[in-house]
């Protein structure tokens, strides 16, 4: 019962973007994808979302190939928050969030949709932006509207039992520090409270250590390591992958892992 890639390779032209990656998203867990620029993190997310078909290997949801799923059914199982979304037409922020309810248009009542949109907007802290026109929002505000849209999509309906998948492509990019934490907390809560399998492409090691249950480390299109956060985030391994000196502070009691880096 997972969304997983098995032995997946992606080759565009003659450039390999991903090589023999095997990875699964587990319901109830928040997976962080770490790796240097150009490592293939976003490519992996695109393969998992079905946007990109792998050149080799399979992508499956509940053991069924992603390709065999109907777009509409798939949309009720996984939501994607894109890196940047261009929308030139003057929709209100609320209308953009409400688009996340499209897959459930015929399944849940307008009242329920309205409540879920409100909840998603509250989590993303954009309730005060509801009536503003999306194109004139700042970059960070647009990001949060997109987050709320993805959340509204992944809330589904009340009587659903199938696990949901929430894929976030660099959700913290362009956000102030408070909202970075808010976004990651939202993804973690989604996993903890609703059994959603969340996944986020991240750059900040400390944030990954603080919020993620699992971490996958990618470099040059290859999966270097994956597993529980504390096991994967070894200073020696991180230093090698990122090509700089990364040290981990000694842990005291329950405090989260904390890293410092220098060239």
């Amino acid at each position, binding site marked *: 019962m997972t969304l997983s890639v098995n032995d997946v390779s992606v080759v565009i032209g003659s450039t390999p973007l991903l090589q023999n990656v095997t990875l699964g998203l587990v319901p109830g867990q928040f997976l962080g994808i770490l790796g240097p620029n150009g490592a293939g993190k976003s490519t992996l997310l695109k393969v998992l979302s079905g946007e990109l078909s792998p050149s080799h290997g399979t992508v499956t949801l509940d053991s069924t190939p992603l390709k065999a799923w109907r*777009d509409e059914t798939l949309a*009720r199982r996984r939501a994607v928050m894109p890196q940047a979304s261009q929308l030139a*037409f003057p*929709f209100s922020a609320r*209308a953009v969030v409400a688009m996340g309810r499209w897959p459930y248009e015929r399944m849940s009542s307008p009242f329920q949709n309205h409540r879920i949109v409100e909840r998603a907007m509250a989590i993303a802290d954009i309730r005060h932006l509801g009536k503003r026109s999306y194109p004139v929002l700042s970059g960070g505000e647009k990001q949060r509207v997109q987050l709320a849209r993805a959340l509204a999509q992944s809330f589904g309906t009340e009587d659903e039992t199938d696990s949901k998948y929430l894929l976030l492509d660099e959700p913290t990019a362009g956000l102030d520090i408070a909202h970075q934490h808010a976004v990651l907390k939202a993804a973690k809560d989604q996993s903890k409270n609703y059994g959603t399998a969340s996944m986020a492409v991240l750059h900040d090691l400390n944030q990954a250590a603080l919020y993620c249950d699992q971490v996958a480390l990618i470099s040059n299109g290859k999966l270097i390591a994956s597993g529980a956060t504390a096991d994967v985030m070894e200073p020696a391994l991180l230093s090698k992958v990122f090509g700089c000196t990364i040290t981990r502070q000694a842990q005291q009691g329950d405090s989260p892992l904390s890293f410092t880096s220098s060239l």
Partner: protein
Amino acid sequence: MAYLSLAKIRRRKKRDGASYWLLPLLLAGLFIAVLLSLGIGGVSIPPLASAGHFFSYLGFTVSDLQPQEILILEAVRLPRTALGLAIGMALGLSGAVMQSLFRNPLADPGLIGVSSGAALAVVCVIVLGDTLFASFLEATSSYSLPLAAFAGSLATTALVYNLARREGATDVAVMLLMGIAVNAIVGSFIGLLTYIADDSELRSLTFWSMGSLSGAGEATWPSIGIMVLASLLLLRLSGPLNLFLLGETEAKHLGVATEGIKRQAALAAACATGAAVAAAGMIGFIGLIAPHLARLIGGADNRFVLPAAALLGALLIIIADTIARIIVLPAELPIGLVTSFIGGPFFFALLFREFRKRRA
């Protein structure tokens, strides 16, 4: 006064989000415009009298029109109005759909070759009709120009659409570029044929390219039928097209079968516009302005914009045709001239308004 009411409408829009309540108003406005337009011309008929005349068929009232007036109303102006309504609806809707599909507020069906294809086919028939296409002219007689225009627009759109296909997927950005390239090539053929045309051929070509509703009558019924059917199909796409505005990938992630929507939108818009061009020649600017006007009064939600663009397109055509009919009595001006003449300055106004808003 008009400005004041527009401001009031905008406040209202902000308060309750959806603007569907404007649609019945637009419909009522269109109804009034039609009644007025039916009465205006060489012989003027009071709008109430023509309304009374139509209701007399239902047995509500007694018609007090003269037989000659009834003839003008039913045989001349009514078919013309019906054709105008269908064309305005088809052009406004196609424009709105194309703008959503390409996520570009300046897109219109012409971008994917609808107009140039129709023009090339018509030029072929007019210039080469007596030599190369003699048998086609014989077989189709009075339908030859509309048939050629319709086939030409469909063929060019299909060409552009297929050129933009890569491994079963159509990239709208590629479609736009392919459209530009195809339009350029088709344009050169039109130029070549225009170059070798003689004086009378040039004259009919020019008139065709300026558009006119004067061909209204039995010969345009098939066109009206196609426009109505294609418009109904386009209206059904309003929900998915909203998501298209977010981006094609995002739409797919939200469960929209994007390839199907693209195919349906391109095909139906080509049919609607192709049929409009076939019935009345080139009528510019409606496809661009009607959707903009709709967004201006009611916001960007396609579930409002599409029907509103259809109604506004029809309204604009009715107004333009009324002007075209009476401004140089007893002759009439090609309607394409009127729409461009009103449309150009209007577009300026739209742009300046947009600039002002950006500076604020």
